[in-house]
């Protein structure tokens, strides 16, 4: 997993609430047996007319050249629905390292963290401020300080993250490495409970 410390970047706004993982990556694109290549189908049905890649919907932010960057900003309750980790893979594969929203669904949040994508939960008010910015604005997400800043206005908000997960992300550690290191404890637990 790639570590994250500070991300300073423009952002892509998708100002829609309750974005479920079927919108992030529709089920028909889950048939790969690897983790790569999902980025091109991120928000597939919102991006193209009639599933046709030659007909991008002009009003969708991912199709607008003005918007770019490593930060995706979305409406509240992002990532609800299916547990498909393909949603996190498609976001990462499309070049995003941070998703900002005012609320995240649980499973998506875990999946993002397990793939080096940082979910930054901000207040509704701060989210509205970001959406009010134009496409030239950059955001700075500082994981060490747990802060997000709108560079143009210098407005800043603190965000929460579990201290264990923070250490993992700052260093690029996986949960699986940690769990493998506790094998002895696990085996002892099994002996005690059976």
């Amino acid at each position, binding site marked *: 997993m790639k570590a994250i410390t500070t991300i300073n970047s423009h952002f892509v706004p998708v100002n*829609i*609430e*309750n974005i*479920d993982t*079927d*919108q992030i990556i*529709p*089920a*028909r694109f*889950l*048939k*790969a*047996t*690897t*983790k790569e290549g999902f980025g091109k189908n991120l928000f597939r*049905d919102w991006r193209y007319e*009639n*599933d046709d890649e030659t007909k991008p919907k002009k009003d969708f932010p991912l199709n607008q050249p003005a918007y770019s960057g490593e930060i995706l900003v979305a409406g*509240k*309750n992002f990532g*609800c*629905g*299916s*547990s*498909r*980790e393909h949603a*996190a893979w498609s976001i990462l594969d499309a070049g995003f390292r941070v998703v900002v929203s005012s*609320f995240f*669904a*649980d*499973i998506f949040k*875990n*999946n993002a963290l*397990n*793939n080096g994508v940082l979910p930054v939960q901000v207040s*509704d008010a701060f989210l509205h401020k970001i959406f009010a910015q134009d496409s030239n604005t950059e955001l700075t997400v500082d994981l060490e300080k747990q802060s997000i800043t709108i560079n143009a206005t210098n407005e800043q908000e603190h965000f929460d993250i*579990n*201290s*264990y*997960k923070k250490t993992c992300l700052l260093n690029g550690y*996986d*949960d*699986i490495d*940690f*769990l*493998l290191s*506790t*094998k002895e*404890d*696990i085996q002892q*637990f*099994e002996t005690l*409970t059976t």
Partner: protein
Amino acid sequence: MSKTLFEKIWEKHIVKTIDGGPSVLYIDRHFIHEVTSPQAFTGLNKRGIKVFRPAQTIATADHNVPTLNQHLPIKEELSRLQVEALKKNCAEHGVELYGLGHPFQGIVHVIGPELGITQPGMTIVCGDSHTSTHGAFGSIAFGIGTSEVEMVLATQCLLQSKPKLMRINVDGVLNKGVVSKDIVLYILSKITASGATGYAVEFAGSAIRSLSMEARMTICNMSIEMGGRCGLIAPDETTFNYIKGKEFAPKDAAWEKSLAYWQSLYSDKDAVFDKEYHFKAEDIEPMITYGTNPGMGIGVSGKIPTADTINENDKSGLSKSLTYMGLQQGSNIKGQKIDYVFIGSCTNSRIEDLRMVASFVKGKKKASDVEVWVVPGSKQVEAQAIAEGIDKIFEEAGFMLRQPGCSACLGMNEDKIPAGKYCISTSNRNFEGRQGAGARTLLASPLTAAAAAITGVVTDVRELLN
């Protein structure tokens, strides 16, 4: 100290807790399927390690399998490759696979309970959000991502933070024509699709206690639609009677030992919940959704909300949803024309669901311009339906009984609803494009779906019941 049902199970499964961080949670049962497991096995192989406790993982093929001609090779290449990868991975790692053609094959959340693999007091996970279904037995059961599937395969453990605790009480007696699906759609319409995010949800109250195991599973299945980390119901005699004698249920002395543990699984009288709701069963009517998340539901006799009757924050969502659905604010949902009826999915594809539909449609015919698919949850459900003559009733009514799988719930196989068409569905999600790009889904109970199959329009099933 008083404890909740959730806490009793949780504490029993903690291997260790990281200071200021999550706990290492031991997992008793792990279900896997073809879509969310391949990358996890690739991860294990890259590390050069084998599945740690293969006997505790059970595999089936359900998400992308065809529901016709399952004896033939899968036509769609990518689906076939996923199913073949599952077969290969299970063989290499010594994991039991109930694949296509096996008498135990079926939707992962249908076969676990019907085989007696799902038991009270367990921790159960699967790379599928509807793993919450298994909570109906009084277990902690939740969906995980593929990285977590890899963790469980490698260590039989996960790193988890304890969720907050919620209890939803439903007391009283259900009205005629109202079934467990209506209860859960009603709760969703009240607390919204994110109302339980961050919580483990215990369902309690006399209306819940009176339900069969299969009806309880429908409720816990949709706890994820409220955002809940898991849903659970304290086990009781109904639970024990359901499990007894099942293929993998404990037998003899082991049964007595298990039963003693199971009987201790309930929330103590003064146990504390972070949030609690109370609903009356009598207030619930047959429910249906009109929008594009499962919280957007109304009683079938009601009107679609208007922007001025809903919360300011939800206004843009309402108009976006209704545009997608081709429905109008303030109009009746009753009478809405239907093109497809889908009876199936891990929410409502069990034998009781099929019996409920069969007893309603017996002697009736479907509307001529409606296509009706009934997809049983498992080979065992299919065999039972045939043994009871339910297949004949469906045939006479013009309903098509297909073979087991997830099918049109998520349209990963050929069972897709065409763009713009309306499907009344007993599944769990009405998201945009869920049943096929552009498909319009109305979620309802098997009874309400069956009524629409007969009339061709959204119907109040109570008007057709004797």
